[in-house]
C-alpha cells in the first residue's frame, strides 16, 4: 500500500502537552494520509493516548498545530472533532452501562431515530443494527450494555465510532486506542476485517502493544518515545523483533519471557490444594499448586476460570469446595481474610478494581499491607516513603513522585504499583494474577514476567490467567484447562519442553 503521494487528511506538527512533572507530548509531528492505516507503538506513557485525545479535542495541547484536510483547527471536544470527521475508540471503555446497545451506539447522534425530540425505538434499533452489521456482530441492539462481556462492549464501541461515516461527507479518520487488548482471536480477526473495509472510506490510526498485530494491519508505523516520534517504519521491511528493539531502545537481554529464570518445583510442598470448588460459574474444580509453581488456567470466556480466581480470593461467593493453604484449612471468606492469610490478587480491570485513581502511588502501593509502614496503629511517613521509593526503583516505576495520583500514570506503571502492593509482603504465599499484562507495553510486560519469575523462585505460588496462550505457556509450570465450568485436562509445560499452544486450544473449545 502506498498512499504517500496524496496530501495528508490529518497532520500534526510540534504538538506539545505538559502535565505536572511529565511532558506527555514533546513536539510531536505525524500525519495520516487518505485510506491509510497508521500504526502507533510506544512504551506505556509514551504519549499515544494523549496524542489521540488531543485529536478529538479532549486534551488541549500547550503548543503545536493540528491540520485536518490541510486546515489548522482548534478542536473543542468530541462533538466538534466528530463534525470534522475524527472519531475515537477509547482505551478505557466508554459506554454507558445502563443504556441499551442501540442507545450507546447512537448516543448524541441519533439522527432520524429521534424526531422532534421523540425516540422512535424501532428506528433506533434498525440504525444501530446497521452499524453492528458493518462489523458482523450479532449483539442484540436492545440488550442492556452492562449485560455484555468486556469484549462485546469493545465491539459495540467500534460500531459506535463507525457512525461517523454517516455523519460527514468528507473522509473520516478513526482513532483506535488499543482496541484489541481485550479481544480474543476471532474477534480480532473480525476487527481487522472491519479495518480493511473501513479504509475504503476512511483512514485509521491503530494503537496496540502487540507488535505482530501492528505489522499485520498497518501501512505505516510510527514509533513513539517520551512524547516524540523516534522512528517511522515500513511494516513490509521489518519484523516484530526489529520493532521491539526500536521500541525499548535496547537489546532485549535474554528471552522475552525470561525462561532462564524458571525454576523446577517438583519437590516443593503443595501450597494450595483446591478440591471440588463450585461457584455460580464453575463446578467441582480441583487442582493444586506447589510452592514456587506458576499454574496457568486456560479457557475461553465463560469457562469459569475467572470465577475460580475470584472465589479463591473471596471476591465472589463459592457454593462448595475445600481449600487448604500450606495444609491448613483455608476459609473462602472475604478478600480481607485472604490477604491476611498471605494471598494476593491482581484483578483484570485495573482502573475500577485495581487502583484508587485519585490517591497517591504511595498510598496505592502500601494499601494491602499498610502494617508494613505502621508502628502500632500509627503511620510512619518516613518509613513509607523509603519503602515506596525502594519499590519504585526496584520495579522501575515511572512516576514524578510517590505523591503523584496513580490515576495519572500510564497503565504499565499502574500495574507495577499493583504488583508491588503484594510483593512488599515477605510472607506472600499465593498470588492470583488475572490478566496481569493487559495493556502493558513489551518492555513492561517483560518486566512483569521477570517479577513473576522472581516471585515464584522465592517460593510464592502463582495462579495465572493470561491474555495469550503463548504467554501462559511460557510462564507456567503447568496449565489447567477449563471448559464450561469444569477442569477438562492438565498440560505440563516444563522449561525446555513447552507444548504448542494448539494442544491447549483444542481442549479449550
Amino acid at each position: 500500500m502506498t498512499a504517500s503521494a496524496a496530501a495528508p487528511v490529518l497532520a500534526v506538527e510540534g504538538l506539545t502537552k505538559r502535565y505536572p512533572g511529565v511532558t506527555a507530548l514533546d513536539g510531536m509531528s505525524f500525519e495520516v494520509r487518505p485510506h491509510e492505516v497508521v500504526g502507533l507503538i510506544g512504551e506505556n506513557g509514551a504519549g499515544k493516548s494523549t496524542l489521540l485525545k488531543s485529536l478529538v479535542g479532549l486534551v488541549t495541547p500547550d503548543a503545536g498545530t493540528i491540520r485536518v484536510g490541510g486546515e489548522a483547527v482548534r478542536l473543542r471536544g468530541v462533538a466538534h472533532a466528530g463534525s470534522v470527521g475524527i472519531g475515537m475508540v477509547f482505551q478505557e471503555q466508554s459506554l454507558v452501562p445502563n443504556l441499551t446497545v442501540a442507545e450507546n451506539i447512537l448516543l448524541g447522534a441519533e439522527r432520524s431515530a429521534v424526531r422532534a425530540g421523540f425516540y422512535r425505538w424501532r428506528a433506533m434499533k434498525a440504525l444501530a443494527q446497521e452499524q453492528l452489521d458493518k462489523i458482523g456482530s450479532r449483539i442484540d441492539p436492545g440488550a442492556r450494555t452492562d449485560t455484555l462481556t468486556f469484549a462485546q462492549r469493545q465491539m459495540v464501541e467500534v460500531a459506535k465510532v463507525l457512525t461517523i461515516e454517516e455523519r460527514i461527507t468528507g473522509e473520516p479518520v478513526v482513532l483506535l486506542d488499543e482496541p484489541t487488548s481485550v479481544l480474543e482471536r476471532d474477534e480480532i480477526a473480525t476487527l481487522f476485517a472491519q479495518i480493511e473495509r473501513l479504509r475504503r472510506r476512511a483512514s485509521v490510526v491503530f494503537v496496540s502493544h502487540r507488535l505482530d498485530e501492528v505489522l499485520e494491519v498497518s501501512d505505516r508505523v510510527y514509533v513513539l518515545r517520551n512524547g516524540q516520534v523516534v522512528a517511522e517504519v515500513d511494516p513490509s521491511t521489518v519484523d516484530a523483533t526489529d520493532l521491539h528493539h526500536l521500541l525499548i531502545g535496547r537489546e532485549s537481554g535474554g528471552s522475552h519471557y525470561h525462561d532462564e529464570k524458571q525454576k523446577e518445583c517438583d519437590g516443593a510442598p503443595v501450597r494450595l490444594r483446591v478440591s471440588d470448588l463450585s461457584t455460580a460459574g464453575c463446578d467441582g474444580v480441583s487442582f493444586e499448586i506447589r510452592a514456587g509453581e506458576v499454574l496457568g488456567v486456560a479457557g475461553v470466556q465463560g469457562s469459569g476460570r475467572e470465577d475460580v480466581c475470584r472465589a479463591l480470593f473471596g471476591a465472589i461467593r463459592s457454593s462448595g469446595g475445600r481449600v487448604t493453604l500450606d495444609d491448613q484449612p483455608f476459609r473462602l471468606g472475604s478478600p480481607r481474610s485472604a490477604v491476611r492469610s498471605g494471598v494476593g490478587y491482581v484483578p483484570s480491570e485495573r482502573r475500577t478494581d485495581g487502583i484508587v485513581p485519585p490517591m497517591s502511588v504511595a498510598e496505592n502501593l502500601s494499601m494491602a499491607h499498610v502494617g508494613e509502614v505502621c508502628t502500632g496503629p500509627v503511620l510512619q511517613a518516613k518509613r513509607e516513603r523509603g519503602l515506596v521509593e525502594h519499590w519504585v526503583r526496584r520495579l522501575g516505576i515511572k512516576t514524578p513522585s510517590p505523591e503523584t495520583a496513580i490515576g495519572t500514570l500510564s497503565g504499565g506503571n499502574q500495574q507495577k504499583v499493583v504488583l508491588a502492593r503484594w510483593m512488599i509482603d515477605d510472607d506472600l504465599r499465593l498470588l492470583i494474577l488475572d490478566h496481569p499484562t493487559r495493556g502493558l507495553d513489551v518492555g513492561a510486560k517483560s518486566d512483569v514476567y521477570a517479577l513473576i519469575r522472581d516471585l515464584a523462585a522465592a517460593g510464592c505460588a502463582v495462579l495465572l490467567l493470561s491474555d495469550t496462550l503463548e504467554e501462559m505457556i511460557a510462564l507456567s509450570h503447568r496449565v489447567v484447562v477449563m471448559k464450561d465450568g469444569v477442569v477438562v485436562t492438565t498440560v505440563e509445560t516444563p522449561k525446555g519442553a513447552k507444548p504448542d499452544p494448539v494442544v491447549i486450544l483444542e481442549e479449550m473449545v
Partner: protein
Amino acid sequence: MTSPDTARPRATDAAGPAPPQGPAPAAAGRTPSRPRLPWRPSGTDAVQTTASLAALVLMILVFSVLDAQFRTWGNLVAVVDAAAVLAVVTVGLTFVLLLGAIDLSVEGVIGACALTVALLVANSRTGLDLGVLGVVATVALGAAFGLLSGLLSTRLRIPSFLTTLGVYAIGLGVATILFSGERPIVGDPWLSGWASSKFLGFAVASWVAAGAILVGWLIQRYTRVGRYAYAIGGAEDITRLSGVPVARFKTAAFAVAGAFYGLGAVMATSQLGSGVVTAGSGLNFSAIAAAVIGGTLLVGGRGGVLQSMIGVLVLTVLQNGLILAGVSPYAQQAVQGVIVVVAVAAATWPVRHRLGVVK
C-alpha cells in the same frame, strides 16, 4: 475537560460470563463456543425493584390480615387519593435522581406555586380568575424554579444538594412574600372539584396524578430529556464524551421535575382549599424515600418513574395501615421506620450478594 481516564468505576459487575454470541463471519474456523451460564450479571436495579415490590405485597398482605377495614374498596380509594400528590411530586423527583443528583427544593417550590395558583384562580384576595390558565402558569413557574436549580448546578458547577437547598430557601421566601399575612382562599369551583368530585370512584386529583404518571413515563421512555437522564446518571463523563450537551439536558431534567412539583402544588392547593406556604411540608423527604425504596437509587441511572411509584405506595399503605391497625400515634413513627428498613432488608437479603457497590 474530562478525560476518560477520570471515568469513575462502571459496569464492574459486567465482567462475568457472556450471553451467547454467534460466530462472526469474518473469523473462520476456530471460534470458541460460548455456553450460556445460569447466572448473568443483569442490572442490579431489577433486583432492587423486585425487592420493593415484594415488600409492598408483603405489607398489603399483613395489613389485610390484621385489619378488615384495610381490605375494603373504600380504603383502597383512600390510599390512592392520599397517594396522589406524593406520586406527582415523586415522578418529578425521579428525573433528578436519575441524573444522580438530588433535589431538596421541593417544599420551597411547592410553597411558592401553591400561593401562586391560589392567587391566580378565583380567590379571596386578588380579583383574578384565570382558571386553567392559572394552573398552566403555576406549572410553568414550577418549571422555572427547576430551571433555576439546574442552571445553578450546571453552570456554577455546584453539587445539586446545595443549589436545591438554596432554591428551597428562595422558594420559601417567594411564598412568604406572596402570602403577606393573609391566606388566599380558593374560590374556583373547578379547581376545588379536583379534590371534592369523584370520577369512576376516585377523586379527580387521582386521575390527574395518573395522567401525570403516564406523562412522566412517556418523557422517561421517549424523549431525549428522559433517556439522557439515564445516560448522565449512568456515566456522565462518557455521555459528555459522546457529544451530548450534558449541562443542557441536566438543566432540562430539573425543569421537568419542577413542572411536576408545580402540578403537585396545584393539587395540594385544591385539597387544602387555600394557598398555604407549607403545603409541601414533609413531601421532599417522603418523595426521596419513596423513590429510593422503589429502586430509583441516589447513584443515578437506575430505577424510573414506575419503580418510584412502588415506593409511593409502600409509604402510603404503611401510613394508612398503621392508623387502621390502631398503632398508637406515639409509636407510629418508630414502627414506620423499622418496617421500611426491615421490609427492604428482607426483600434484598436473598439477592444481597448480587448487588454491586451499595452506598
